Structure formats: structure tokens, C-alpha cells
């Protein structure tokens, strides 16, 4: 047997006191039956554990929710979440408005009148949707301004800026298509004007107009076309892009505010000198 070199072996750790280290159960020993209170307390954990065992979602949730954020993060960083909550509010109130709304040129105004004047809480939900749309547009621009002035669009976050601009445009299209739906004088003429502004684009403008109106004039299908774009096509696209936007935020992390200074380790600085 070769002789071991003379080395110091680390001491084994101090064993924990017996009170913190209960003896393992003997095989075959009966488990104590949990009391009803204990069972109720464990039910939530058990359900979450059951799902997590089959999906491993807790890792994704931890990755998304428990991120490291730079020092100096402040209230301006909540504008993105605020925009997303405005969108969620629009989605939920929109779904419930759709239960009463009728997108036909002869019925639309009447159904909106019914929502506002007769349906229980109808005026409130309609108001949430109407004012919420303005809130969302304002929040989008504030969020964009925060990103711009904090320089958060720079490498490696350019793609997230591009997705954000796509979301801004889609939000504008949502506002434009939604404005027609009450189908009163204001929305009718505003849509005529808006469509004609589209038409002033050279070469493609006239064709874009025809697509929006479904024909050369404001016709029977224009309203239902706007409605379908407003409540089926765009919400899905926006939700998908918000998902991509959030994924990139979690993957790349948030930027430190521009006034934050990197903290230098004193020891490292001495080493450099």
C-alpha cells in the first residue's frame, strides 16, 4: 500500500443536534394520519405539486417572476406592466360588451344604446372600455418614452423595441377599428375621415381603402369587417406579441437607469493599479 501524502483532510461537519435531526421512520411503521386542518393546509401544496410534477412549470414561473433587477429600478419601470393591464382590462370588458353588441349597420347603434341605458352595469363596462382605450394609448406612449430616454432600446434589446413598435401600431389600429363600433354620427364620420387619410398614401392608398371598406363605398360589410378585425384578428396578434415582448424582457433583463453608476470593488481597483 503506497504511503499517502501528508495532507490535511477537512473535518467532518458537526452533526446537527438530535432535536433537529429526527430519526428516520422505520420501514413498515404507520404514518400518522394528518388531522383535517393539516390536510386542508396541505391541499394547495399538493395540487401545485401535482401539476408541477407533470409540467415543471414552477421553473418557468421562477425564471419569469424572480429575476435580478438592477439597482435604481423605479416606478417608471412599471409602465410596461401598466400597459399590459390596460390591455387585459380592454380584453375582459370587450368580451362582455360583445355579449350585447350587434355589428350590423341597422342594429349596432340600438345595441350600444341598450348597453348604455338598460343593461345592468352596461354603461360602466362600456365606459371602462371607452376610457380604457385612451388610457392604454397614453400608457403605450409613456412606456415608449421611458424606453427611449433610459436608452433601453440599445443592444441587445433592439428586437424588443421593434416588437414594441408593432404593438404600438396594432394598438392604433385597435383604436381606429373600435371607434366605428358605436355607430353614431361621430364614429361614422370619423371613420370616413380615417379611411380617407389611409387613401392619401400614394399607389397603395386606394387599394387599402377598398380593403378597409370592403368595396368602393362605406357599405353593409364595413362595420362587420371592422368588428372582426377589432375583436378577433388583432387581440390574438397583440397577445402573442406581448408574450414575445415579455419573454425578451425576462431573457435580457431590464436596463439600469442611465444615472446609475457601476459600483467598483475597492480590492479590484487596487489590484488594477
Amino acid at each position, binding site marked *: 500500500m503506497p504511503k499517502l501524502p501528508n495532507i490535511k483532510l477537512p473535518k467532518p461537519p458537526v452533526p446537527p443536534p438530535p432535536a433537529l435531526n429526527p430519526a428516520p421512520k422505520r420501514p413498515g411503521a404507520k404514518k400518522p394520519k394528518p388531522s383535517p386542518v393539516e390536510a386542508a393546509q396541505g391541499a394547495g401544496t399538493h395540487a401545485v405539486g401535482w401539476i408541477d410534477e407533470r409540467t415543471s412549470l414552477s421553473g418557468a414561473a421562477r425564471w419569469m417572476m424572480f429575476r435580478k433587477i438592477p439597482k435604481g429600478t423605479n416606478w417608471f419601470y412599471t409602465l410596461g406592466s401598466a400597459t399590459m393591464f390596460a390591455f387585459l382590462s380592454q380584453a375582459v370588458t370587450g368580451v362582455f360588451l360583445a355579449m350585447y353588441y350587434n355589428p350590423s349597420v341597422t342594429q349596432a347603434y340600438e345595441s350600444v344604446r341598450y348597453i348604455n341605458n338598460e343593461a345592468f352595469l352596461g354603461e360602466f363596462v362600456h365606459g371602462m372600455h371607452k376610457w380604457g382605450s385612451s388610457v392604454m394609448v397614453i400608457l403605450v406612449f409613456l412606456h415608449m418614452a421611458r424606453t427611449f430616454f433610459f436608452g433601453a432600446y440599445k443592444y441587445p434589446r433592439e428586437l424588443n423595441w421593434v416588437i414594441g413598435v408593432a404593438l404600438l401600431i396594432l394598438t392604433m389600429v385597435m383604436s381606429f377599428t373600435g371607434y366605428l363600433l358605436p355607430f353614431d354620427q361621430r364614429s361614422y364620420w370619423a371613420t370616413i375621415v380615417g*379611411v380617407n*387619410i389611409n387613401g*392619401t398614401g*400614394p399607389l397603395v392608398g*386606394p387599394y387599402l381603402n*377598398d380593403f378597409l371598406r370592403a368595396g368602393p*363605398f362605406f357599405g*353593409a360589410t364595413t362595420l362587420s369587417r371592422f368588428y372582426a378585425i377589432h375583436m378577433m384578428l388583432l387581440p390574438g396578434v397583440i397577445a402573442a406579441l406581448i408574450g414575445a415582448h415579455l419573454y425578451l424582457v425576462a431573457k435580457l433583463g431590464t436596463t439600469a437607469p442611465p444615472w446609475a453608476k457601476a459600483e467598483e470593488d475597492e480590492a479590484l481597483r487596487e489590484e488594477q493599479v
Partner: protein
Amino acid sequence: MSDKHQTKSKYTSDRQIPGAFEGETVTRRRFMTTTTHVAGAVAASAFLLPALGFALGPVFEQHIEKWQDIGPEGDFGADDYTPKTIQVTDGIGEAGRGTAYVRKYNPQVDSQPIDEYNHYIAISSSCMHLGCPVQYVPAAERFICPCHGGVYNVEGKVAGGPPVRPLDRYYTRVRHGRVQLGPKYSVNSNLDKFSPRDPGEPLDGIGQYLYPSRPTLRKDPNQSNQ
């Protein structure tokens, strides 16, 4: 350079692939991958193309405008416009109506030669800035738009404000003593006729090429049915 970077022969038989036969260049793996992609593309276009065509179809739909009766000849003077409610689009109730301002051809005002279709001058109320409804104010002898301040003179030519061309017109004709209103046409600042364009699209200079007309909507009044 190692062997890895040597260019491979494009023939499968040279690459020692089992089952290769002479002259074969596409591996079976590659062939199957391509086939799957093509099948996927065919399946996707099977629902995408019809949906797209369905959405774009109305753009190319033939649009036939009918002549509509707007009243006896005696309704319209030569010195003042008579507003007439007309049907612009069928089947959408009130939203499908519009207004045409109609008067008799007046040689002292109108410069263009008289022909079969302009014994009565019918002017569309749609402002050529962005499509708001203009109103004729007899005291001022001007068409005035409430939205952005467009002003037109008695011929419908731009007298001020943002509009880019004179007000659109309708062909008119007289049948059995009654005035009938036909298809719409657009005019440039010399009142030359063009196929109908949307508001906001200038027709002077290269405007008529920058804003092409729809193939389905012509200025020819004979396109319309009786």
C-alpha cells in the same frame, strides 16, 4: 485542413450512403424533409388563400350603379342648388344615403361644353379633403365643409382650405321629363373627368397616376345598367 472541410461529392453513391444508386444526388432524408415541408405548405395555403381571397374579394367586385330618379325637371333652377337625398349604398339604411346638390346647366357659370349627361349639374356633398359632408350656403355661393374648413365655389372648385381637388360630380340625364342621377366621377381643377377617386387624392399633375382608380369603377356612364 482536416477531412471534415473537404467538399462532399453531390452524388450519394460517392458518399457511401447505403442503398445509393448511380446518379442520385438527393438523399432520402432530404427528400422526405422537403416532402413534409411541401405538404405543410399546401395544407396551410388550403385555408389561408381562400380566407385571403374572401377578405380581398370585395375590392375587385364589379360595382354597378343604377340611375336613380331625383325629381321632375322643374325642381331645379339654374342659379341655385337644390339638395337631394340620394342612395349611395343599398341595404345599410340611413348610413347608405348621401346628398347631391343639383342645378340646371348655367352657361354663365359652367365652362365645360354641354353634352348628354350634364344638362343638370349634380355635385356630391363629399368633401375632397377627407370626405366630410359639405353644405351649400346660398348667401355666400360657396360649399363649406364643417370638419376642416374646406371651401368651394359655385362650380365646386376649391376656393380655400385643405381640399385637393374640386367636388365630385354625378352624371345626370333627363328621361320623360324627370332628372336621373347616374354614376359618380371625379374632376381635376380644370373639371376634366376622371374615374371616381376617394377624397384626399389629388388629380392634377401626376396625381392621377399616384392614385390609381379601381378597375371595377369607371367614369363611363354607359357602364351602368338602366
